[in-house]
């Protein structure tokens, strides 16, 4: 696929053959990307397609293993964040990377504030320039107010103003509307139009098809770290993009075994939280794998963490095998037989500085010990039993978990929970960032667990995984259950539509 501009102009920024490998994962494999002046290019792909890696390469935070970056046809390197800024590439990040205690003007200019007499910061000029910048993006903000006093949307505008305070030619917007309300999103669209008119090249990363169709001029699709396609938005259909994103139907062979779906194990009714989710209710049965699909930030993990006792719902009830359970702490969740394999494995899942066996027996110490005293032989026996079932690869059972690959760390976390003989296991993005081989092992094992009568909830943002593994799928959007699919209605198109909120075609 040749890069060609609709208007015939040359790209400002051009990436060729970019490859980036992390231990165990190839995040990007010889991808290409072209950005043209005065045009918005939408980068489309599922979670894990390599979008955030490319943003980090463009802003000088990661260095590519292979490939070239060219600005105006000149090959260039971005060894630091400053170098990328100097070349005119600036990014507005997903999370605002700003400082609450500084004023709006200071946030915009920190690191390159105008100086006046005695080398002191020329506050008057800085505020004036900040006002000018804010006005240029149509932001009605007081430049002297402290950032902590602003809402999320206003902070976002400050981040944009900061990005523009560096004389940028390429502006990267990484999910800029994720935290904005309807009105604010429209203001952002106006802003994008203004930037286009100024001739800036914009890379727009979003999951939301309606906005892509509204503001993008071109698209580029990545899938699994590979470049799939690019072209002008004119003439392309939504269904085509979904197809490109998801790939040739579900092409991986998932080892889903038929399991007998039995009696309800977990019944959740009317779970509410003041800010995170609202009116969540569902029933989970023995032998069932229930998929939870949605965009990142849809509130899926928050619901699961409430079930696991990390946060407390403001309303709602939870029944395990017909018995009402009030879960105020993780310890009570484990007692109730609900366990949770978190998405953030390094921080919440594994204790990396401790050996495998100590990780595995952590919630089962009551069983392996006698009168509160450790019995190492019992611990090793239990660890051996469950790590063998999961086909763990390690040098020894007293090896520190931090030394294992991501996939094997995940197996340790799962082994830890299976050793407690749970009734419900919640897996939050269980195969995120782990290698293909371990992925298959986790899938295989999940299937086996269901076949043995365990009730499984799988939170996943990967459509093939959801479709391949789940018996039933609940789609969440903005903290609420948007739809539920089972059997033939479980199609990639239906899931994506429900997750992004596209109305059914009338």
């Amino acid at each position: 696929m040749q890069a060609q501009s609709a208007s015939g102009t040359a790209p400002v920024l051009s990436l060729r053959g970019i490859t980036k490998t992390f231990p165990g994962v190839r995040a990007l494999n010889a991808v290409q990307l072209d950005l043209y002046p005065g045009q918005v290019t939408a980068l489309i792909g599922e979670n894990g397609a390599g979008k955030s890696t490319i943003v980090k390469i463009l802003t000088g935070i990661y260095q590519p293993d292979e490939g070239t970056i060219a600005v105006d046809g000149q090959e260039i390197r971005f060894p630091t964040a400053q170098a990328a800024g100097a070349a005119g590439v600036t990014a507005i990040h997903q999370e605002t990377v700003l400082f609450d205690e500084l004023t709006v003007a200071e946030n915009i200019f920190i690191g390159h504030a105008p100086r006046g007499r005695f080398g002191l910061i020329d506050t008057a000029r800085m505020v004036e320039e900040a006002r000018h910048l804010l006005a240029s993006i149509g932001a009605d903000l007081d430049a002297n107010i402290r950032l902590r006093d602003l809402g999320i949307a206003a902070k976002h505008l400050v981040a944009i103003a900061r990005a523009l305070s560096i004389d940028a030619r390429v502006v990267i917007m990484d999910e800029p509307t994720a935290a904005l309300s309807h009105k604010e999103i429209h203001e952002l669209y106006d802003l994008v139009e203004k930037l286009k008119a100024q001739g800036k090249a914009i890379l727009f990363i979003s999951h939301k098809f309606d906005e892509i169709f509204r503001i993008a001029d071109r698209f580029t699709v990545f899938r699994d770290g590979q470049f799939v396609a690019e072209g002008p938005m004119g003439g392309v259909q939504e269904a085509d993009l979904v197809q490109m994103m998801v790939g040739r139907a579900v092409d991986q062979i998932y080892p889903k075994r038929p399991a007998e779906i039995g009696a309800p194990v977990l019944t959740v009714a009317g779970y509410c939280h003041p800010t995170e989710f609202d009116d969540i209710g569902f029933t989970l049965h023995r032998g069932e794998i229930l998929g939870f699909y949605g965009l990142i930030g849809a509130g899926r993990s928050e619901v699961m963490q409430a079930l696991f006792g990390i946060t407390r719902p403001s309303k709602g009830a939870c029944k395990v095998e017909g018995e009402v359970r009030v879960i105020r702490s993780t310890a009570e969740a484990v007692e109730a037989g609900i366990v949770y394999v978190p998405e953030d494995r390094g921080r919440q899942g594994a204790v990396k500085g401790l050996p495998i066996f100590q990780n595995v027996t952590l919630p089962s110490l009551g069983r392996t010990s006698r009168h509160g005293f450790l019995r190492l032989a019992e611990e090793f026996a239990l660890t051996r039993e469950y790590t063998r079932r999961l086909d763990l690869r390690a040098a020894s059972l007293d090896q520190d978990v931090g030394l294992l690959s991501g996939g094997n760390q995940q197996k340790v976390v799962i082994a830890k929970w299976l050793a407690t003989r749970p009734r419900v296991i919640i897996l939050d993005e269980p195969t995120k960032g782990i290698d293909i081989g371990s992925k298959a092992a986790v899938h295989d094992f999940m299937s086996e667990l269901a076949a043995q009568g365990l009730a499984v909830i799988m939170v996943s943002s990967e459509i093939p995984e959801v479709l391949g593994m789940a018996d039933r799928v609940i789609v969440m959007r903005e903290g609420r259950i948007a739809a539920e699919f089972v059997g033939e209605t479980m199609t990639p198109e239906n899931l994506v539509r429900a997750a992004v909120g596209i109305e059914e075609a009338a």
Partner: protein
Amino acid sequence: MTAASQPTPRHIPDRLKSRLSRTLKSWEALLLVVAAAIFVANALASPYFLDPWNLSDASFNFTEKALIAFAMAMLIIAGEIDLSVAAIIALASTVMGSAMVAGAPVWALVGLGIGTGLACGAFNGLLVAGFGLPSIVVTIGTMSLFRGISYIVLGDGAFTGYPPEFGWFGQGYVWWVFSFELALFAVMAVVFGVLLHRTNFGRLVYVIGNNATAARFSGVRVDRVRFILFLLTGVMSGVASVCLTSRLGSTRPSIATGFELEAVTMVVLGGVSILGGSGSIPGVVIAALVMGLVTFGLGLLNVPGIVMSIIVGGLLIGVIALPRLWAMMRK
């Protein structure tokens, strides 16, 4: 990617390195060598050093601080710190003094001393584990508060005239040259060693120090463990207060000034990571002996006490700095 492509599970050995080889390469082993070297150097430098009664006297240099250091080690391994321990000693001593003046019997004095420690520990624990406040500032605050109460009670005065029987805890001997304090040190070393290294509770201390979030996500009642650790530290400070008050035979509000620093130094010298997550009781025991021997040896050489404090401060920084410097050099 089918199930068939997976080989049968491999056998994974329980351990690779033997425990012996680990022990030999440990910080504790190095420390033991240092202790032995200091012992020999002292024996050569002063003819009085090898006298068993002198050595027994020397043990008072470290026993009280070491009692606190055992509990402090567990607290630091769990990622917290208690800077109020010396102030707890002062407050517990003041409570005992007031009770003594009121005519309380010896057993009541001991009970009140330990009880005050328990109450102070509970207060720290409540603020840190209950309200989620940072332990450094909380204990800087309680350090002023606890000692401040002693000052309110005593002003520039002192309690003296403890009953002679009370003196046994700090001055008595269990058998031959072995003082009560030394015996208590040995017993507590074993108790804390078993608690930290052989029980579920000790395991949780390491887990929380390594990754408190993951501990919570594994069903561990993190705050309960933290609270108990502050309780333990309070109790051990109370015990140390009984010993120290008994040994000195008096209570002044300035009693045990600087003990918190020496206890923390002992813990860090013993190989406990100040950032939490690793360390051992045997290490702290050897560190206590090293500090005791150094103090005693310098004392025999007529080096003044405040110079000792330079050495303590230097040790505290040096023990952490040297391995880091070494790692930087090797890069």
